[in-house]
C-alpha cells in the first residue's frame, strides 16, 4: 500500500483542471515512476494525488495545423521511440528516450513527467532544449505556451501554476526541418542509470554541406537545470565543417557550463567529458546531415 491520503482520477483535461483547482494541495501523478518511488521513500508520503494517467487524449504524436510535431504529454518513452513521425523527423529524441531507465520504465514513463520534474538529468530534457521545444500548459485560464527554457525555473521547479497541467510538447517546423542531431549520454551502466552528463547537439548544413548554417547544443547535468551552450553555438555558426570547427566547439562549451562535484563525478571530469561529447556529437550531427568533416 502506498501512503496516499487521497487519489482523484481525471478522465479528461477539463476534469484534471477542476480537480486541481478543487484540491490545491494535490500533486499530479502521470506514470508515477518518480512520484510513487518518492512516496515509497517517504519524501512525498501522505500526499493527495490527482492521477492524469487515464487521460488517453494526452497520448500520441501528430502534426498540428502549423506542421509542428505535437507530442502528447502522456506519451510513453517506448511509444515515442517507435513513432513514425519521430523516426522520420526527430529520431534523436527517440534515441534519447531509449536511454531512460530500462524497458519497463520506458513503458510507464512519460515525456510530460520527465520534464515536469525539473530534473537536470532527465534524458529527454537536453534534447528538447536543443530543439527549441515549446511546452503547452492547460489550466483554469485556458492554454498557454512557452519555450522550454522558460519552463524550467530552477532545480526541481518548473513554471506550472496552480490548476495547470502540461498537455503537450511541440517542436515547431522551423526548429526541426533540415536539422540532424545526436544525443550522447555518459553514465556508468548501459541501463537503469542516471546520466553523469547528457549532451544533445544538432546542426543544419548549407546546401553544399560544407558549412554549418546553424547549430544548437544543450546539456543535462552541466548545471542545476538543463542548459544551452550559447557561446559554443555562436563560435561555430557559419564555420566550415572541418576538424578545427569541431575542436573549437568543444573548447567553447567550457564558458557555458557549470557542472558540480558530486559522488557521481567530479567537476573536472564533467568538464572534460562535456568537451569531448560536444565535439563528438557535432561531428555525428554533420555526418548524419550528409556532410563530411573536410580537411
Amino acid at each position, binding site marked *: *500500500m*502506498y*501512503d*496516499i*491520503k*487521497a*487519489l*482523484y*482520477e481525471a478522465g479528461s483535461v477539463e476534469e484534471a483542471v477542476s480537480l486541481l483547482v478543487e484540491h490545491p494541495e494535490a500533486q499530479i*501523478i502521470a506514470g*508515477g*515512476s518518480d512520484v*510513487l*518511488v518518492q512516496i*515509497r*521513500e517517504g519524501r512525498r508520503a501522505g500526499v493527495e494525488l490527482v*492521477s492524469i*494517467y*487515464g487521460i488517453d487524449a494526452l497520448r500520441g504524436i501528430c502534426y498540428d495545423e502549423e506542421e509542428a510535431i505535437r507530442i502528447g504529454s502522456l506519451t510513453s518513452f*517506448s511509444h515515442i521511440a517507435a513513432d513514425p513521425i519521430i523516426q522520420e523527423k526527430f529520431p534523436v529524441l527517440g534515441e534519447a528516450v531509449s536511454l531512460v*531507465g*530500462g*524497458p*519497463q*520504465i520506458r*513503458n*510507464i514513463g512519460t515525456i510530460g513527467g520527465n520534464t515536469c520534474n525539473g530534473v537536470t538529468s532527465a534524458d529527454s530534457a537536453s534534447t528538447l532544449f536543443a530543439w527549441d521545444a515549446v511546452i503547452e500548459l492547460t489550466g483554469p485560464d485556458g492554454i498557454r505556451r512557452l519555450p522550454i527554457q522558460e519552463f524550467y525555473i530552477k532545480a526541481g521547479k518548473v513554471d506550472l501554476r496552480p490548476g495547470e497541467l502540461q498537455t503537450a510538447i511541440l517542436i515547431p517546423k522551423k526548429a526541426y526541418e533540415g536539422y540532424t542531431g545526436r544525443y550522447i549520454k555518459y553514465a556508468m551502466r*548501459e*541501463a*537503469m542509470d542516471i546520466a553523469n552528463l547528457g549532451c544533445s547537439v544538432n546542426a543544419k548544413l548549407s546546401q553544399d554541406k560544407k558549412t554549418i548554417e546553424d547549430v544548437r547544443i544543450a546539456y543535462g547535468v552541466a548545471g542545476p537545470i538543463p542548459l544551452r551552450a550559447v557561446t559554443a553555438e555562436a563560435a561555430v555558426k557559419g564555420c566550415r565543417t572541418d576538424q578545427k570547427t569541431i575542436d573549437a566547439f568543444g573548447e567553447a562549451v567550457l564558458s557555458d557550463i557549470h557542472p558540480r562535484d558530486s559522488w557521481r563525478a567530479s567537476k573536472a571530469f564533467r568538464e572534460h567529458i562535456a568537451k569531448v561529447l560536444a565535439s563528438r556529437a557535432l561531428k555525428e550531427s554533420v555526418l548524419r546531415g550528409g556532410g563530411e568533416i573536410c580537411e
Partner: protein
Amino acid sequence: MSNRYKLIKCTINGKEREVMIDVRASLTDLLRNDFRLTSVKKGCEVGECGACNVLINGECFNSCIYLAVWADGKEILTLEGLSDPDGGISDIQQAFIDEAAVQCGFCTPGAIMSAVEILNEGRELSDEEIRIRMSGHLCRCTGYENILRAVKKTMLKRLGKAEQ
C-alpha cells in the same frame, strides 16, 4: 475518506474479474493479495529490479510502481497465465529450466514476462537487442548469460530457425 475504494474490472490471465480495491494499492498488491498470483514478486518495490514485471495490454510494466486503479479496463498477464489448462508449462519456461537460467528463481517470473513481450513480436532480435530488452531485470544468481540464451533459443525455435 470518501474515495478510499474503487470497483475495477479487468482481465487477469484471460479471466474477467471485478474487484473492489483500496486506491492506495499497487498492482503487485492486487495480484498477490487478491488473486494469490505469487509469481509476481516484491523485490525492491521501487521499479528497479523487475521482479514484479507483468504484461499489461501486451507491454511490460513493473507492477510495484503501477497503481492498481489504473488496471481498470486492462488485460493483465502474469507468469501463471502462461501454463496450459492442464498445468503444463510453456516453451519459454522450459527453456529457462533447460538452460539453467533459474537458480533461486526470484527474478525468473519477471524475466520470463519480458521474454514473452519479446517473443510475441514474432521477429528475430539481435543479441544486442535481446540484451537491451532484458536489461530491466536484476538477477543475483545466474550471471545473465543463461537467461539470454534461453530467450534466444526460444525465439529461434518459434521462428523455425535452428541455432547457429
